[in-house]
């Protein structure tokens, strides 16, 4: 799972839809891989307004990336910032581990980079 996706994904449990503790889901036992992918500047510019910055800072820090600015970069992004965001959001992936909900404590397993969001029916 790409770091990008973790900034958008939420707990799928019905009772967590309205809880502020449910986002972002938190990594446990995360194993990381870097995969080189072509830089798409337009894409980074397109999605930046939709990034929840404090959540991204928190997720990144939990994985050992502590160099993000504490507030979202505004206006024209410099080239280095675009590259750094591409590396973190698009190229960095959690290949195995768990995503855990801070509200209901449900654990979503990640195996070969794929998170399992299937739930028992009574939880949805």
């Amino acid at each position, binding site marked *: 799972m*790409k770091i990008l996706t973790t900034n*958008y994904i939420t707990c799928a449990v019905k009772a967590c839809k309205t809880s502020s503790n449910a986002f972002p889901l938190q990594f446990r036992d995360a194993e990381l891989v870097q995969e080189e992918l072509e830089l798409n500047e337009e894409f980074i510019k397109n999605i930046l307004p939709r990034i929840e910055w404090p959540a991204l800072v928190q997720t990144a820090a939990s994985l050992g990336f502590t160099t993000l600015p504490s507030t979202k970069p505004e206006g024209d992004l410099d080239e280095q910032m675009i590259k750094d965001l591409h590396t973190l959001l698009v190229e960095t992936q959690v290949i195995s581990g768990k995503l855990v909900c801070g509200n209901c404590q449900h654990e979503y397993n990640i195996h070969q*980079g794929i998170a*399992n969001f299937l739930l028992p*029916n009574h939880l949805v």
Partner: protein
Amino acid sequence: MSRPEDTAPPDLFYDDSEAKKYTSSSRIQSIQASMTRRCLELLDLPNSSLILDIGCGSGLSGEILDEEGHTWIGMDISASMLAVALDRDTTGDLLLADMGQGIPFRPGTFDAAVSVSAVQWLCNAESSDVTAQGRLSRFFDGLYMSLKRGGKAVLQFYPKNELQRTMITGAAVKAGFGAGLLEDDPETKNQKLYLVLTVGSGGELA
């Protein structure tokens, strides 16, 4: 030919051997590619959009999204299909998830969504504690929320009959989408049906 939807639930139907068979069939590949291109044509997106692929399977549609410069996140209920996607080295991020349980993304995440040959599966209620209506409304409500204002979705699907067509379209409208149905090659055996959905316009049907 019997419909796979009538045979078994999708996570069981698309086991390892069906998933490989489906993905390696050149006929299926080319139909899937042309339907995905049609979806993109109808979406008319700027480059570099973030797209949700619902029922992404082995990533056949994702390949086209990728070619067009978009970034995609795919969800599918079949672990076997996703395993083939991994083997094929697709670029999209993959999620094992059941669209009938909702769309687990925060509001306004996606520029657009596509789906090829998947949403008719929602009409198969798979256990005693879920209904097709319940699954349809969780899906469309979740999809509506996950798209940004002005966002669009194009869902190509194969309804089994008039009832399924009405159920699916009705659930989309009920969720708040502006909805239209588009038929390519109507009344032929190549007939293809596309549900074109927009967020933020009225709920009238074309």
